[in-house]
């Protein structure tokens, strides 16, 4: 593999979990709620996976536990907002904090450590897809990834299809655009909203599993800000799956470049991480986020 191929392959591997979490964020964003709990949901999913997979030795149970855990947490935020009229944004922030505290407590009791837990045999191996991996450039970039990356890509595709080509996705989008259009069509908008939260949790759980499996271990704070970046990706992608893909790949490339750049010039990683926020902030500040233009008169 030449350096360009390596870079592109790495960018793709970095981008995929972020993309999936962002698609999860897209589900709620389309339904009209910005889900800021993505970071916490990723961590919760990864942890639940680690506990269940390590405890039962079954990958399937691990995945099921992760999906259930993250979806339940997302629904907790949804229910607090819907049933108790809590501010949905604040409720989602609370979920992040709750995960930070509860995972620490649980890890100590389950694993006896708040630190790293190697998950033996859960490292997802690299899989070369037969003759496909021999295609010039595309082969090494696309088809010599980890097994989990193919699954992630499939999950991303499913999420994108669910968003743009299923009745569920249609209802989601209609909900965000005009709630009344659902009511008059006989669909309960609240149910759609709950499903959106649950789907968002499930997507984050898968992203978390991917993070854990690509290093074969549970590591505290495993999301390391990827949930927040996913949020930024939702915003930059302008609610279109293709846009999200472009934004996620852009970040993947940025991070891969910064990794590579360390050998030639030392770009501090903090500054690289600050870039997406600064870029998105610039977009938001210049009025791109003009969701409620109401003080601009009078």
């Amino acid at each position, binding site marked *: *593999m030449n*350096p360009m191929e*390596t870079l592109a392959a*790495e960018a793709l*591997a*970095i981008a995929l979990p972020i993309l999936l979490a962002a698609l999860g964020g897209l589900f709620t964003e389309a339904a009209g709620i910005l889900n800021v709990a993505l970071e916490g949901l990723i961590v919760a999913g990864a942890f639940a996976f680690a506990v269940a997979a390590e405890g039962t030795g079954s990958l399937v149970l691990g995945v099921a536990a992760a999906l259930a855990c993250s979806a339940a947490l997302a629904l907790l935020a949804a229910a607090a907002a819907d049933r108790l009229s809590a501010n949905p944004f604040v409720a989602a922030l609370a979920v992040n904090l709750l995960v930070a505290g509860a995972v620490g407590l649980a890890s*100590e009791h389950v*694993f*006896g*450590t*708040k*630190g*790293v*837990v*190697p998950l033996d045999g859960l*490292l997802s*191996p*690299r899989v070369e897809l037969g003759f496909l991996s021999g295609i010039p450039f595309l082969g090494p970039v696309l088809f010599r990834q980890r097994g989990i990356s193919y699954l992630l890509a499939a999950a991303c595709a499913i999420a994108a299809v669910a968003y743009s080509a299923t009745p569920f996705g249609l209802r989601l989008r209609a909900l965000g655009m005009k709630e009344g259009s659902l009511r008059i069509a006989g669909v309960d908008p609240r149910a759609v909203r709950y499903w959106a939260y649950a789907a968002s949790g499930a997507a984050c759980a898968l992203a978390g599993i991917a*993070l854990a499996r*690509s*290093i*074969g*271990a549970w*590591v*505290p*704070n*495993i999301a*390391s800000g990827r949930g927040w970046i996913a949020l930024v990706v939702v915003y930059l992608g302008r609610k279109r799956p293709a846009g999200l893909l472009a934004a996620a790949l852009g970040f993947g490339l940025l*991070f*891969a470049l910064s*990794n*590579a750049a*360390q*050998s030639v010039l*030392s770009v*501090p*990683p*903090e500054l690289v*991480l600050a870039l997406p926020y600064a870029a998105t902030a610039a977009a938001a500040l210049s009025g791109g986020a003009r969701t409620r233009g109401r003080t601009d008169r009078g």
Partner: protein
Amino acid sequence: MNPVRRSWIAAAAVLALFASCAKGPDDSSSRPAVPAAFKGVAVFVPGVVSGSPIYEMLAAGARRAAESVPGTTFRVVEAGFNQAEWLDKLAALAASGEFDLIVTSNPALPELCAKVAESYPAMRFFVADAYLPGNPAIHTVLYNQLEQGYIVGYLAGLITTSGLPGANRAKKAGMVIAQTYPTLDKLIRPGFEAGLKAVDPGISLEVRVVGNWYDANRSAELTSSLIDGGVDVILPIAGGAGQGVLSASKERGTYAVWFEGKGYGLAPGTILGCAVLDQERLVRERVGALLSGDKSLFGKADVVGASEGYIGFDPEGDAYKALPSELRSRFEKALTDLRTGSPAFRIDSL
């Protein structure tokens, strides 16, 4: 009627209630300045114990020392990784009044201990893995980590120039670090580099920075890029993120040398050697001495190393034992030389 006023009154009532159950003032500052012995030992862990060998040894050593003196209160307190909170938590430990000796380990701690000691003159501190002479409340012992670096560096040098299946022709070794800090810059890295050069002056060292102590996925990516660049043996000093180095190295069939305790089990076949600090022994001995009333140690800053046996190498790993015997004998000779002062690493200040 007014909910605001009502809640103020309620708050005041609760406060009064608690205050009345509370004990009277008996601050530690009002006790005699130098105690004959210590009634309570607290281990202050600037991080978390489990998963960190150096802190596990710290806690175990202090525990054994405290248990040898009946009647001593003993507690391990984890302060977490945010160094900005350490001072507050250290002070809280002192303010609790339960302890008069705080045992801890980290190069950054002596300055924080000194600050706490200003407010709590009766408190005494023992800090391993740190260096601060001259403060009468604090005893520090610094490991000669130049030597520790040299040990893994020498082994890494032998590996990268060897014909092991995972070793390539490029004479390159790597380090993946969480972030730079003085001990790393001044001791570990120069020691590691010295070890490499001692094997072959042509070996070069590549260093990558993760940026934090937990992003294991990122450290795996960095490791991958190091390996792509021809590196075949890596020393991770990155806390939780170090797991990423091990996963990536294992996957690519390259090697790692380990710095944080006996780590062969973390990645069998990948970790070929572990430099060890006998922190447990050091802490047990020094804390034991302090508990038995040796006041002369306070104010002193010692440096210990291979010759005293506090820095060494753990040969009890299958991966190490499976190395070619010629390689092992070269390495063990270098180890013996180091113990007898060749090369000699001196630390004048930190």
